[in-house]
């Protein structure tokens, strides 16, 4: 896959940025001189460089515009976002050009012809005057405008030949540099090819040499692509307020389909979405739906949303529905197993997502935590949290017995005849005791005992320094 760049020039963007091409003669004026003129103005004889008074004399109905850089940049960005449908690598080349790397997506559009057909369709519907350029590097695409009709991607040699024929006068260089280049009698870019590069750099400056090497593809020319608009945010208002949550499924599905299209366009996924229900009483209910891994398919999002909605109570009829897509992440599909194990189980994440979407369920992943008191050594991870490295090293070798069930907080035990009782029956205490003291924690020291209960249970109890007995766990 070799790199192929398309350049789209909008030569009259300054004139057309506001309301597109017009039939009326219109010129752009800078310092009382015409800097751009549209075809209608040209037909009336108005040329660039004319004084404004002369232009007005030539054409009575001349409409004069001042350059507005903000409007122009905004229009350029807007066109760039439209072109993101063709390739994710759309680069801005101010003032009025876009550069598109299309070498990677030729196959997607069925080859070079298919791609050009897409570009032609875009140019047909584009509200601005456009010129197309094509080349193996961004700079060469910028310069090689209006390519001849092509069947397939031209070879590198043909591009070189076209570049060689470029007059030095038309290069995108500083005017003084162009004059200096022409001074020794050089006329076209091809005249520069045989000259030794170090000497060129010495004579015309390192920046020119760098530019030339980037133009000819001898040096990389990295460009930062245009970032797609962020974030996805849509709102849908209903003519009649909805008082049944089931009626929300259809609009939700269509909003999710929009989100999926948007994500597909950029090859991205999101890990969480947020629904806003705009209620009739002025309140807004927000539902967050999360997934274990970023996803982009409508069906799963809709299923999780429905589960979440089941437990939602409506205070008032719904007037509008909003959807916020979370932070998009680029898709990184894992490699599929070529020979999957026939007995392999699917990943747990699908089940976790479903269970985590139901607010009535409490799901956690038990884990250990460094702590002093027994009940402090436990923690629960949220199910969708990524399992971290175990914080506590395996203490399988440590000799103390720890109960399998832990009561948090400990339960008070009744004391009768100075014996701790549980379920109204006395506990038989083991004489060995284990001491936990934590004076800095403003908590009483605990003396732990193993105790047997007549029901056939082995309990773990402790006595605090106020002689209260507490049940901590069961073995």
């Amino acid at each position, binding site marked *: 896959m070799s790199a192929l760049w398309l350049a789209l020039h909008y030569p009259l963007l300054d004139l057309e940025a506001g309301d597109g091409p017009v039939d009326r003669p219109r010129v752009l004026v800078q310092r009382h001189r015409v800097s751009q003129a549209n075809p209608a103005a040209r037909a009336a004889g108005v040329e660039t460089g004319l004084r404004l008074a002369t232009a007005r004399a030539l054409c009575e109905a001349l409409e004069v515009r001042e350059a507005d850089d903000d409007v122009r940049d905004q229009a350029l960005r807007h066109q760039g976002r439209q072109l993101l449908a063709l390739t994710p690598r759309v680069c801005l080349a101010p003032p009025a050009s876009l550069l598109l790397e299309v070498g990677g997506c030729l196959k997607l559009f069925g080859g070079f012809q298919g791609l050009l057909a897409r570009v032609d369709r875009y140019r047909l519907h584009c509200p601005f005057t456009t010129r197309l350029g094509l080349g193996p590097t961004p700079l060469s695409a910028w310069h090689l405008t209006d390519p001849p009709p092509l069947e397939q991607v031209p070879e590198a040699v043909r591009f070189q030949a076209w570049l060689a024929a470029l007059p030095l006068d038309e290069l995108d260089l500083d005017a003084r540099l162009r004059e200096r280049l022409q001074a020794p009698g050089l006329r076209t870019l091809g005249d520069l090819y045989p000259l030794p590069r170090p000497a060129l750099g010495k004579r015309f400056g390192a920046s020119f040499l760098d530019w030339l090497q980037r133009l000819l593809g001898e040096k990389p020319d990295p460009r930062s692509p245009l970032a797609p608009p962020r974030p996805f945010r849509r709102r849908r208002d209903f003519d009649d307020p909805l008082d049944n949550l089931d009626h929300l499924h259809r609009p939700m599905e269509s909003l999710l389909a929009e989100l999926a299209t948007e994500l597909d366009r950029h090859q991205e996924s999101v890990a969480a979405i947020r629904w806003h229900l705009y209620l009739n009483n002025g309140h807004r209910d927000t539902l967050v739906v999360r997934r274990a891994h970023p996803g982009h398919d409508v069906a799963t999002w809709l299923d999780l949303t429905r589960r979440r909605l089941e437990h939602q109570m409506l205070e008032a009829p719904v007037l509008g529905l909003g959807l916020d897509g979370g932070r998009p992440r680029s898709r990184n599909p894992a490699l599929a197993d070529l020979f999957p194990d026939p007995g392999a189980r699917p990943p747990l994440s699908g089940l976790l997502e479903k*269970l985590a979407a139901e607010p009535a369920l409490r799901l956690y992943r*038990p884990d250990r935590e460094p702590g002093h008191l027994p009940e402090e050594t436990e923690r629960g991870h949220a199910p969708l949290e990524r399992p971290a490295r175990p914080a506590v090293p395996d203490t399988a070798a440590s000799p103390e017995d720890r109960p399998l069930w*832990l009561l948090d907080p400990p339960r008070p035990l009744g004391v009768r005849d100075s014996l701790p009782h549980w379920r109204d029956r006395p506990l038989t205490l083991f004489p060995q005791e284990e001491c936990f003291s934590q004076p800095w924690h403003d908590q009483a020291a605990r003396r732990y005992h193993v105790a047997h209960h007549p029901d056939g249970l082995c309990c773990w109890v402790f006595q605090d320094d106020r002689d209260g007995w507490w049940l901590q766990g069961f073995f």
Partner: protein
Amino acid sequence: MSSAFLQQLLSRRDTWRGRDLDGATRGGRPTGFTALDRLLSQGGWPTHGLVELLCPLPCPPLLHLLLPTLAGDQPGARLIANPPERPSALALARAGVPLERLLVLHGERDGLLRACYEAAASDTVSTLLLWAPGGALPAGTLRRLHLGAQQGRCLLVLARPRRAARQPSPAPLRLELECPAPGELSVTVHKQPGGRPGEHCRLTLLPEHLRRAPPATATLPALTRRPRPASEPPGRVPPGPSLDAPGPEAPRP
């Protein structure tokens, strides 16, 4: 009784055939207890499906019985649903249970049962241990759980109160548990494919030093009593049912 009627009866999906082992006579998952493996006709827990343990609820030693199964090298997650107390991660990790694949689930009755069915049928959970929520469990629910567990290759162990033994159940394997002494568990077969009810065995769950009865003197509470008033507890006491409440199944002297 005509043979056609008999065939019709046998072809019903809810007819339980005591001698039918689906060809897998001894293909069960080892329970980790030799005596119990000998007791079970499949040589261990069934690989999937519903297993009922009828025990005095809530029964803390029950988790000990399932520890080797939870710790086994089966692929897939382990789910503990509706436990009466918090299972200690430290003790589970020491027993070899992979904590990164262990989940604990709490919930209201209907949502819990539905979630358990989904988990069992999802083919991602290899062992599911469910403490039956309060209220009656109709046979249809149990049947759904059993079918879901079979579909999802999940061993679904359902802990139910002992009074449920009187109700018929679609579970192929039903065992009754009893705690005769601390650290010991007596298992009686209530129903088993290819086996007879009434057989029983006794298992030792805890190490010797925890089972050994303390010397008689230790029962005396001569443990440094100081004359100080007992007062407020160190932490809040949560409401709700727990191991602490005297169970209706607790044997009374």
